């Protein structure tokens, strides 16, 4: 399942409900998941807020595709991807990627694969409100590029 949401989400509650709704009790031996959370610092500057823009339509299409690729490469029982858009505050969860499988290798590798693809290709853009040290006023700046996680 893929969810793009403007509402804050609790990753643990989402994981708990989704796993229950999967109705795969006794089948899955492994769940690997990743949660990306907004920090209050970036590149040495204090960050007080963020606006996350995306490309509605292409976002879902791209995530669907990458999940299909992952299901092709690994034996997966189910996947859950949630991504926040709109206005965010520090400590807000931004993204959740979770993968259920029979054996751990599949869950570990697929969760990282989906997350890395999302970071490098899914059409989301962050604009953060920052106050550089020594400066009084806040400025908005676009985050320029995600770094590779490998």
């Amino acid at each position, binding site marked *: 399942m893929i969810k793009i949401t403007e509402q804050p989400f609790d990753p643990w509650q989402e994981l708990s409900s989704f796993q229950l709704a999967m109705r795969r009790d006794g089948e899955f031996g492994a769940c690997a998941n990743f949660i*990306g959370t907004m920090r209050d610092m970036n590149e040495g500057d204090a960050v007080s807020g963020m606006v*996350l*823009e*995306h*490309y509605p*339509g*292409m976002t879902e*299409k*791209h995530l669907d595709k990458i999940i299909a690729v992952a299901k092709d490469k690994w034996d997966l029982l189910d996947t859950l991807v949630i*991504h926040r858009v709109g206005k965010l505050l520090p400590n807000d969860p*931004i*993204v959740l990627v979770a993968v259920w499988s029979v054996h751990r290798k599949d869950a570990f590798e697929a969760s990282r694969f989906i*997350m890395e693809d*999302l*970071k*490098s*290709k*899914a*059409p*989301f*853009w*962050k*604009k953060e409100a920052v106050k550089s040290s020594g400066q009084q006023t806040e400025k908005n700046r*676009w*985050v*320029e*590029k*995600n770094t590779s996680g490998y």
Partner: protein
Amino acid sequence: MTQTKAELTMTIKVLYFASLKELLGCGEESISAEAVKTVEDVWLLVSQGKNISQQVLYSVNQEYAEGDALVKAGDEVAFFPPVTGG
């Protein structure tokens, strides 16, 4: 402006995101499909006169595309900077 059905089918929908939307001062516009063959043609047309030095990514119908990808009337073309989600 209101477009007739005939006009609509002759146009390409062009979208801009993030910093590019700000630089171009526009999020969405329609251009005539007649003067353009590739995504690169569309980009040269819409960015002309603007000094855009940053890296620009292309998509056609919501899939990444190279500059030489062909476009036709009815397509949705988008231009955006490197993505920064997650």
